Each structure stands twice: as C-alpha cells, then as structure tokens.
C-alpha cells in the first residue's frame, strides 16, 4: 500500500504543470481562450500530443504510451488546477476510452493513433436530452440495411461535440438488441455548439440518417462497457475536480492573508480562518478518496471500479460544493466575477459533477447497495 508518486510520476506532473503554465499563466489567458472558438487552445493541444499526454492511456501499438490510471489522474489534476478548457476528459478519457475498450484493432490503430497525435478530436455522444447518466442509449436509434448502419436522434450534451472530428455514439440497436456504439464522422451530423457555465464547450448533436460504423463487432449490447468507461471517466473527472479544489483552497488562503477590511487582513477574523480550515478538511478527505479510486482501476475489476466511481463521485461532489461555495463567499464580491479564477472554478466543479454524476445520483446508487456488505473495506 502506497499513496506516493514514484519519480517518473513526479516528473510527469512537473512536465504537464510546466506546459500548462506557459498556456495558462494566469486566469486572463484562460478567459481569452474560452472567449473564442473552439473554446480551447489548439496549439496547447498539439504540444500535449507531442509530450505524449494525449496518448497516455492507449497501447503503444495503437500510437499511445500505455501508461496507467495514476498517470492519467495526474494529468487531469493538473488540468483542473488551471481550469484548462481542453477536452481531455471528453476526448481522450471518455471517447478514447470507448474506442480502446470496444474498437477493432484497425479502429484502435486509426482513431487512437490520430487522437494521440492530436490530429483528431473525439467526443462521446451517450446522453439524450434530459437524460441522467444511463448506460443504455435512449435518444439515438441505430438502423441497419445490409451492412450499412445509420443513426437517427439527438444526443445532448455532447461535451466537446462542437469541435470534435469524430463522434463515438451510443445508440439503441434494432429489435431491442440493447445499446451499440458507433463511430460517426462529425461532418455527417447537425451540431449546435454551446458553452456550459464554466465556458467549456458542449453541443447538441442531431443524427438524421447519419452513416455510422459499429465500434468492434456489430450488434452486441455494449451497455456494460459504456458503464465501465463512464465510471473510469467519473474517476478521472474527480481527479480534475481535485485539482480545481486545490487551487481554490490555495487562492482563498492567500486572499485571507492579503485582503484588508476594517484595517486588518481577513485572517484576523477567526470565523473566516476556521471556515478555511473546514475547506482544507474537505479537500484532504476528497484527495484520499480520489487517490484510492484511481488506484482501484489497476485491478481491472469492473464492479470494483463501479463502486469506486460512486464513492469518489459522492465525495468529490460534496467537497466541491462545499469548497466551491466557500471559496466565493470568503472572497466576497470579487469571487462572483468572471475575471477571477475562484468563481469560474466553482462553475467548473459543478459542470464536471453534473456531466459525470452528481452527489444525489451516486448516493442513490450507494444507498441501494448498503445492505449488500457489512463493512466498507478500504484495503483489499
């Protein structure tokens, strides 16, 4: 049992942090980037590809690096620290994860190779309008005629869907055959992009007879795999949230030390410093859960990962709401402004949770299983 990074992991963290510092030296840089389309920095995306970060999760034979979940978590934490709007979670972890899990060798080599090289952006279209983290598709239907598949319906939100070149789409198979996963060229759909509250981008995607290629062997019900990749994405999203929260606690602490009111700095007021202490408590507890959940992935057991996703999802959602709200409150008015990173961080935390699974969702699932075990075991 070991909660520390090895030297290579430390080096990866430093390298990613260094690269992100050039692109997002301050919050103004992030503001400028999200003010324009595509809502992220394509040059930075390219440098992440060169550094191997985009190919981190994928096998070397498919153009990737073959790193483990801890490394991917490190990248997500660093992205979170600077509120980077790059679609790493959506494109690499989620959509790339679906391709890596379900694609044929040729599809993997093609799509993951180009994704790793920064040549294409992928997006996963798995949620229907009004839908709530289901692994069964219900907004898009697949039809087959001979070997030719087409899709009809709407997916929304499709995170990074506006800038994606290729969509990885969950769709209902004919004859109640369950949920299939298809690759669709973004040129063959109707897309309406929009910004979420944190100014990261998503899209509403309409399929109307769109030509689709099954990912892997066609016609199988892939709902369990979709669920597993969602769980993995949830855990990596929690890593990203952790990075955001770390920055918020640091910013709040710095602000309390420097901001004066009534002739003294705010850290003179015990009611405020104690609330900062409570923020730190939430942060550390969430940090532990994030590390744990990330480590569970290596074991490769789907049910263990599903459990870990619910547990870290609940913990990070609670911590994120607490820290995100207190960060604004302890900053006062300035925390409400788009010019300042703290309030935008609070928006980012909510977008991550509502996209990937919020506290009531995870709690409801955990509550359903509460009598299935006697004790929750931290160590196997």
């Amino acid at each position, binding site marked *: 049992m070991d909660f520390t990074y090895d030297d290579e992991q430390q080096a990866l963290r430093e390298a990613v942090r260094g690269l992100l510092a050039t692109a997002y030296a301050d919050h103004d840089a992030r503001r400028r980037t999200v003010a324009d389309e595509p809502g992220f920095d394509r040059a930075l995306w390219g440098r992440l590809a060169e550094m191997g970060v985009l190919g981190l999760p994928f096998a070397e034979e498919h153009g990737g690096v073959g790193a483990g979940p801890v490394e991917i978590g490190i990248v997500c934490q660093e992205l979170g620290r600077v509120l980077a709007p790059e679609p790493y979670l959506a494109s690499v972890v989620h959509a790339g994860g679906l391709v890596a899990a379900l694609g044929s060798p040729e599809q993997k080599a093609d799509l993951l190779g180009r994704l790793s090289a920064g040549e294409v952006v992928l997006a996963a279209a798995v*949620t229907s*309008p*009004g*839908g*709530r*983290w289901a692994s069964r598709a219900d907004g898009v239907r697949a039809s087959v005629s001979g070997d030719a598949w087409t899709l009809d319906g*709407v997916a*929304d*939100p499709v*995170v990074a869907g506006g800038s994606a070149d290729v969509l990885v789409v969950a769709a209902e198979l004919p004859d109640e055959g369950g949920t299939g996963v298809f690759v669709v060229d973004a040129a063959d759909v109707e897309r*309406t992009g*929009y*910004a*979420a*509250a944190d100014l990261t981008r*998503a899209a*509403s995607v309409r399929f109307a007879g769109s030509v689709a290629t099954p990912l892997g062997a066609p016609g199988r019900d892939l709902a369990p795999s979709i669920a597993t990749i969602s769980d993995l994405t949830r855990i990596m999203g929690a890593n990203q949230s952790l990075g955001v929260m770390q920055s918020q606690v640091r910013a709040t602490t710095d602000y309390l030390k420097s901001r*004066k*009111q*009534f*002739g003294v700095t705010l850290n003179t*007021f015990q*009611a*405020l410093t104690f609330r900062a202490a409570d923020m730190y408590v939430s942060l550390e507890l969430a940090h532990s859960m994030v590390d744990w959940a990330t480590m569970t992935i290596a074991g490769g057991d789907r049910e263990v990962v599903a459990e870990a996703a619910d547990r870290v999802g609940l913990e990070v959602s609670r911590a994120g*709401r607490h820290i995100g*709200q207190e960060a*604004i*409150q302890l900053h*006062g*008015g300035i*925390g*409400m*402004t*788009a*010019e300042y990173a703290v*309030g*935008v961080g*609070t*928006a980012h935390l*909510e*977008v991550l949770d*509502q*996209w990937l699974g*919020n*506290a*009531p*969702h995870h*709690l*409801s699932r955990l*509550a359903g299983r509460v009598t299935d075990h006697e004790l929750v075991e931290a160590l196997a």
Partner: protein
Amino acid sequence: MQLELSPADAEFRARMREFFTTKVPQEIRDTVLEGRHLTRDQIVESQRVLNAEGLAVPHWPEEWGGQDWTDLQRHLWHEEMQRAGVPIPLAFNASMIGPVIAQFGTEEQKSRFLPDTANLDIWWSQGFSEPDAGSDLASLRTTAVRDGDDWVVNGQKTWTTLGQHGDWIFTLVRTDPEVKKQAGISMLLIDMTTPGVEVRPIELIDGGHEVNEVWFTDVRVPGDLLVGEPGQGWTIAKFLLGNERVGVAPVGATKRALAGLKTVAAAQMEDPMVRARVAELENQLLALELTALRVVAHSAGGEPHPASSVLKLRGTELQQAVSELALDLAGPASLASRAEEDSPQEGWARRSAPTYLNYRKASIYGGSNEIQRQIISRTILGL
C-alpha cells in the same frame, strides 16, 4: 395569538392578488416565474402599472404616494407580488433613495425627485461599495471637493447593480478627509449623464451583466444635490440600509421556485430522497415565512426589528439551497447553460447552473451573512 387574518386583511390580500394577477402583463409575470431575465422596459412597465394604482411605494409618506398600511399589509403586498410573479418595485428607487429623500431631502429635492422615482421615470443606481470598501464601507475613498457652489467628485464605485440602466446614482463620498472616517462622509445625487461619469460592465460568473464599475473623473455636481448635511452621509446610509423590515428574505419567490421544480421535474419527485429534500426545504421556508410574520407583527415604529438579520441570513441560505436542488435535478441538461432557445434541453434546466452561480451573491451583497452573524451576536446576544 391567532392565525387567521382579520376580515379586513383578508380582503386586502384578495384585492392585491386580484390586481397583480390581472393588471400586470402576463408576459412579464411569466418571465419572473420561469426565472428568466427581465428587460429594462419590462421592469419600468411593471412599476408604472403598480404606481398608477398606488402600489409601487406604499411605505413612503402619503403625500408622496405612500399608503398608510400596517406592516402586515406591506408583508401581504410583498408576498402576493412574489406569488404572482410581479417584479418587486426597483429597490434602488422604492426602498433606498425614495425613503431617504423623503426623510432627509429638501422640499425642492422631494418635489423634483420623488414622483419620478416612484414612477421609475428616473432609474436610480447605488454608489456605495468601492474596491477596497466592501463590508468595511466606512473606509471609502471617493472624494467630493467643494468648488464654489459645486462639488467635484473623483473616485470609483463598484458592484453597481444594473448601473447600465441608471439615469441617476446616489453616492457616498468623502467630503472631509480630516475627521473620523464615518464623520467625513456625505451623500450626493449624481446625474449619470454628467461628463466624467463612466460605467464599465463587470462580467459575473453566470455570464450576466448585472453589476458595474462606475468611475468619476472630475465630475461636477451642483451643491443642491447633496442630501442632508455634509458629513451626514453615514447616518443616512445606516437609515437606508436598516430601513427594510418587510421583504428582507425572498420567501415568496423561493417558495414559487421550489413549487415550480415539483412540476418541471415531476418524474424525479417519485424518488424518496428528492421528496425528502423538497419536504425539508418546504419546512424551512415555512419557518422562515412565519418568522417574517412574527417580525412584522412585533415591529413598532421605524426601528428595524433585530431579527431582520435572521431573515436575511436564512432567506439567502434557502434561496441558494433551492437553486442547488434545481441544479441537481437538471443534471447533465444543466450543461446547456448558454445554449440558444432552440436547445432540446428544457429552459429551467438550462438556467439552473447560471442561477445557482448568480445566487452565490445573495449571501455576499446587502450585508454579507458574516455581517448578519455579527449583528446577531453583538446586537441581539450582546456578545
């Protein structure tokens, strides 16, 4: 003790309900009830409808359009407006500068400003907060220097809500830098079209343009636009900020917002955990509303009841809690915050994240919740 309204009060309430639901345009009320943004014109139109009926500024002196109502009647008026989705008369006009001019202004100021203020012919903005004077308002730095009969104003105000619509702004300025900081402050009324006044938008995290910075560079203000005496500004500001007993907590609006969620997220109301969360909030809102009624029933004369701080504190907490519930009910659909109206996601769900973020301000502005706790612990508990 008794729970029923007197026949007269019940009749009063019925009259308010009737008027609000029939005379204020439906489109304006729907906009409020659905949590969408009102235009400047809608706000003005609604207030003029009220003012024509004598319902815009009932708490003002009768000669300036007020009504000789009891506090309970004012409460009922205020709750019925929220219930019907009627925009509350613009606070800067109706609750802030109007009562101040009526109390401290010259006769000339009263006749010049009060009718236009009641009818929203003048849109007032508030110029109190500064970048380094938030909760610690008394340390403000904007100066007004006497020059003949005029004052020359320099400095910066911030968090000026809806300042982009403002015709005039009432400001706290430092007229005497030599004396104790509260004693050197005066209140000036400034025409925002005066040369040297510049309004710059501040973008908030919900993407809206709701607050502004207002810069004053050698702005010349005629001497007859000072309210009260030089140095009386702090007293006037305390009067202005403590003037509210009714409507401190947005009970009615929060109740409506919660009730609305039961309809728009009807399917999720089958979930026992959602039901419990709604039930808990409804109960807390009832306790808050009853406390507002107790405060109304107990308050005597012009002094604000100290429990107003309880209403502000709890009222904003519950407003925020309901916005959290809305966001959690919206789930992934909440990502479509800045999607256009043709989005396949429902409007309430799209607005849930911006509303959640916007309401974070509720515990900061108008006396932060920390200030309210300070008032309770010092003034009420004597700590």
